């Protein structure tokens, strides 16, 4: 599966845009993403491990909040989008 980084998150990952990794759930995908790009750790989660505000996660074309959040299951060929949430109007 692939993770596509958008907007500010590309900068947080040193310019990376497209990361290929193995994961069965969204939680595993984020952990693998942070392993590949440790600078994303504090950008994705606060000091208590909670996903930050103004972060949107989509699996293919669906908002992950409606797929079980971090428990959302992933399959080969899925694309996870890491997006700066629409903010400010």
């Amino acid at each position, binding site marked *: 599966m692939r993770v596509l980084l958008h907007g*500010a998150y590309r900068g947080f990952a040193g310019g990376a845009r497209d990361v290929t990794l193995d994961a069965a759930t969204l939680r595993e995908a984020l952990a693998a993403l942070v392993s590949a790009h440790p600078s994303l750790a*504090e950008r994705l989660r606060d*000091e208590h491990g909670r996903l930050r505000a103004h*972060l949107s996660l989509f699996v293919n074309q669906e908002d992950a909040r409606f797929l079980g959040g971090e428990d959302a299951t992933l399959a080969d060929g899925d694309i996870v989008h890491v997006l700066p949430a629409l903010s400010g109007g």
Partner: protein
Amino acid sequence: MAKQVVLLVGTKKGLYTLRSDADRKKWAVDGPHEAPAPIHHATYDPRDGSMYAAINATWGGSRIDYSRDMGKTWQKSKNPAFPEGSDRTFFQTWHVEPGHTKTPNVVWAGTEPAALWKSEDRGETWELNQALDDQPSRAKWVPGFGGMGLHSIAIDADDPKKMQVGISVGGVYTSTDGGASWVQDNAQTGGKEDRPDVFYCIHKLLAHPKVSGVRFMRVHVDVYWREPGETKWRNRTEGLPSTFGFAAAMHPRDRSVAYVIPLDDMKRTASPPGIGVYSTNDRGATWTRNDKGLPPGAALESVREGMDTDLLDPLGVYFGTANGDVWASRDEGKSWERAAQYLPYVTSVHAATID
């Protein structure tokens, strides 16, 4: 080497720098850094030439950036982080305060939620001041209109163990042991006693950089002065056109001089209409309006970190406004020239005097 002045100007959309020589007539504007992040405060540390900026970003969390090369490049510190099990999460930084010259690697930060943080490695990592966090009175802190933040860190001129912090809305706490313990420090004299809640809404608390024990405090309502040895805040509002305001500064050499920008309590813009800087040369006993060069009648405002001074003689005084202006005085606040315009909403101005 000739001195220069660098203004670190925080705005609601990034950090700008304004640079001038000692004449302070022309300013070169550079920026923004880290737009669109709001910058609540940025400061220069004269001990080693570092700069610090509170980058309060929407995406990816807020950070405190530091620069070791006069703002050419910036690095990101390890975030302030509340301990595991805390019910609070670091949201944003309101103020960064370089420590005393006797503690060369120490830098302090105040944040929202209101907490005090200490760095012992020149701003690279931050540790929560547990003693302040453990104050039972913390349960009574409440957010002001702008949030609940610790924004003032006043370190004594002679003794780095003597310091105060100001919290909105939580009042003043004093430590005499470098932050190992704290006591509430809200006794006042000469002020109105009918709104104790308002007195706890500290807007800016300053320690004189040269004279031990001298403090100046801008509160939601009224301004206060404290002389060495005093234990109460002496009300010094008489002579100002309103009781409300945010921006405040002290003269770095003359221990009797301070500056404020009064605002209307309800409109939150200059009162009377047309912004003016009010100065005292007698520790707040009397105040003088200074508006030569400022736009008559303009509904401007300057916020909490909006005013500062340089260290030159005659003194340079600077303030920023919500409409994106930066104003500069080269004659101790008597007259004013616009140093920059059309910036985003200015949230902070810090003047660095550099050899």
